[in-house]
């Protein structure tokens, strides 16, 4: 079956859910069936967050099974490693290179793997790291990292980039539209 599986990972508070919403709405606006699912609840408390978007003619299950994702978008390198096993063989990873310490590292119980990027490259031959924070900052808002990440994968999806832009416009607050579009296009150019 040709279902396109997207997994989005990150840290609570990074805007993973809004990015998922943009992708899901874009698929719907392109006339496809879509199921989107994330686990929230404690997510805002700085924990690890994972979200699924499944796109196709008819989508049944809302969950992506490890080993079947076409694309993994990770907002943080350690989270990319944590969920890289969701990718199917040959799947593509796009990740934000800016690290965020987990509480276990912040409290000295664990150390952040210094070779995280090497480990990512080893785990996924088709991995692309970008500095989403700088791109978001250049667009005018550090918080627009989520839009940068959507932009970075936009051309790899079975969705027209113009549709994604339209959805970003519609989900953004009036005064955030310009920043978000800049971030989206900044991500696409990265």
């Amino acid at each position, binding site marked *: 079956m040709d279902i396109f599986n997207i997994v989005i990972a990150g840290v609570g508070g990074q805007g993973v859910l809004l990015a998922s919403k943009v992708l899901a709405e874009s698929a719907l606006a392109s006339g496809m069936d879509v*199921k989107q*699912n994330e686990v929230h*609840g404690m*997510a805002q408390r700085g924990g690890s967050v994972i979200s699924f978007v499944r796109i196709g003619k008819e989508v049944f299950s*809302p969950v992506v099974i490890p080993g079947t994702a076409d694309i993994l978008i990770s907002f943080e390198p*350690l989270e990319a490693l*944590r969920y890289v096993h969701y990718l199917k063989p040959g799947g593509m990873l796009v990740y934000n290179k800016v690290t965020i310490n987990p509480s276990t590292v912040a409290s000295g*119980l*664990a150390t952040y793997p210094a070779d995280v990027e090497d480990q990512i490259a080893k785990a996924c031959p088709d991995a692309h790291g970008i500095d989403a924070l700088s791109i978001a900052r250049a667009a005018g808002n550090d918080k627009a990292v989520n839009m940068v990440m959507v932009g970075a994968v936009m051309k790899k999806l079975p969705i027209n980039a113009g549709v994604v832009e339209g959805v970003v416009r519609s989900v953004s607050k009036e005064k955030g539209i310009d920043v978000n579009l800049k971030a989206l296009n900044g991500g696409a150019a990265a």
Partner: protein
Amino acid sequence: MKKIISGNEAIALSFGDSGGVFASGYPGTPSTETLEEVARLGEVYCEWAPNEKVGLESAIGASIAGGRALATMKHVGVNVAADALLTLNYTGVNAGLILMVADDPGMHSSQNEQDSRNYAKFAKIPMLDPANSQEAYDFVRDGFEISEQFDTPVMLRTTTRISHAKGVVEQKEKIEPKIGPWVKDVPKYVMLPNYGKIKHVEVEARLLKLQEFAETTPLNRVEMGERSLGIITSGVAYQHVREAYPNASVLKLGLVHPLPERKIREFASLVGRLMIVEELDAIFEEQIRAMGIRVDIGKDKIPLCGEVNADIIRVAAGDAIALGSAPIAALPQRPPIFCPGCAHRGLFSILSKLKVFVSGDIGCYTLGALPPMSAMHSTICMGASISAAHGMAKVNEIAGRSEKPVAVIGDSTFFHSGMTGLLSMAYNNGNALVIIMDNRTTGMTGGQENPGSGRVLQGQPARQVDIVALVKVLGIENVVELNAYNLAETEAAIKKGLETPGPYVLVDKNPCILRYRIKQPVIAVDPEKCTGCRACLKAACVALGLGAAAAGERAKVQVDPNICNGCGVCVQLCKFDAMSEAKGRG
């Protein structure tokens, strides 16, 4: 118009579109957004109750008064509301009544993994189990019809993947609410034994009628495909079944209690191997086996714990080995933790230091059980902190042990079911220190209003209970305010509470920084003074981290100004005066 909405949003939308009049409930993941969405849509009256029992009872009253009513809660909430439910099933309803319960297979954010289908069996009432957002929408309307046609409450059960998964929903034509008469009917609504006996007979007869209904309703449908494998399933498990076996024959149950015996028997006779795919308990399987029907694949192959997925189903049917590749081992965990700036951090820094036994409760403060704080030693259910501490204190007294237990509870949990425990402690001459973290919100579930927050669900001002006065009126003489941001003061207050015989209550009133968007000036580290001793890291704050170590030196602490929220706990933990005090607190 088509929209992509979650199961919870679909239920809320349909409630308004299906003549709903009154909704009540108590927050609990994954059910919470349902009532929030009813409020946001603004068409139907709704409110937060202080607990699930009150929510359901208020919905019962609404139904008796003639309005279609909805009560929402998470799975464990039904335990709290069960007393009402297990007699409401006898009285039946006037206007339709739906109890929406959200289960959490996989325990994404719950303390247990109970299967609410047991309650439908227990209460002998119908239960609907939607498989996507559209069905969540449709089943609300069906639920009201069944409720009124059979004079019974109806349970609408979701799971996390239904409540939170978004799918496409098409809205139906709106049914305007019609409020029926408010009638006095003693034998129907007063469950004295004599009336109850009559009602019990009716409950059993009603169940037989519902069973007949189950045989013919389109809620239960057979999708005949290849006959070698036939699968009986419901809810989100249906989606996983379709994913695994797009061409198999499926009996999809929408009404999961009572079961359609004839339909199941017929389906079983048409297929080769019969497989039952259900998340959590073997509810279908046990009943189907009891019908004398052979089940080829069931709970022997599909786990009783956790969620099901297409992979598990294929493997259970013997057709595949698991596709799933394994995660990379030995990565640092990223558990949830107190937000930067949260007052709970100050409290747990001290509880951890004092090494007292902390009888805990359910809320953000439960995160105090995790390392490095490790300062919560029991957490059972909402409200148990105070009552359990009371029991501990009594046994300590009998054993001649002098330590006094400490109970920690939040405002919402105190109103939910902590107050009665405190009443007992006062009444029964107890001896525990109780700390109420009144952050003026129901934090863990996303910041809902409660009787102490000063606002109702829709945000309008409301009567605000005075916790200190309430504690006194329950019979507690020693009630003292606490400022958990000030560690020295907190330590002194806790020590005083532990030394003073009898019940002692501390109330911290610092508001939730996340809910009230409080931003404090950030902390800075003086690298000249920082010795790299790591004392501040005990604060377990994600704003802190170690920089690169210079040759022959210990790595020094850095504060991420984008994350820091200036609570000042690390400043007070620092023994070398290397961190600058946040302004406005202390």
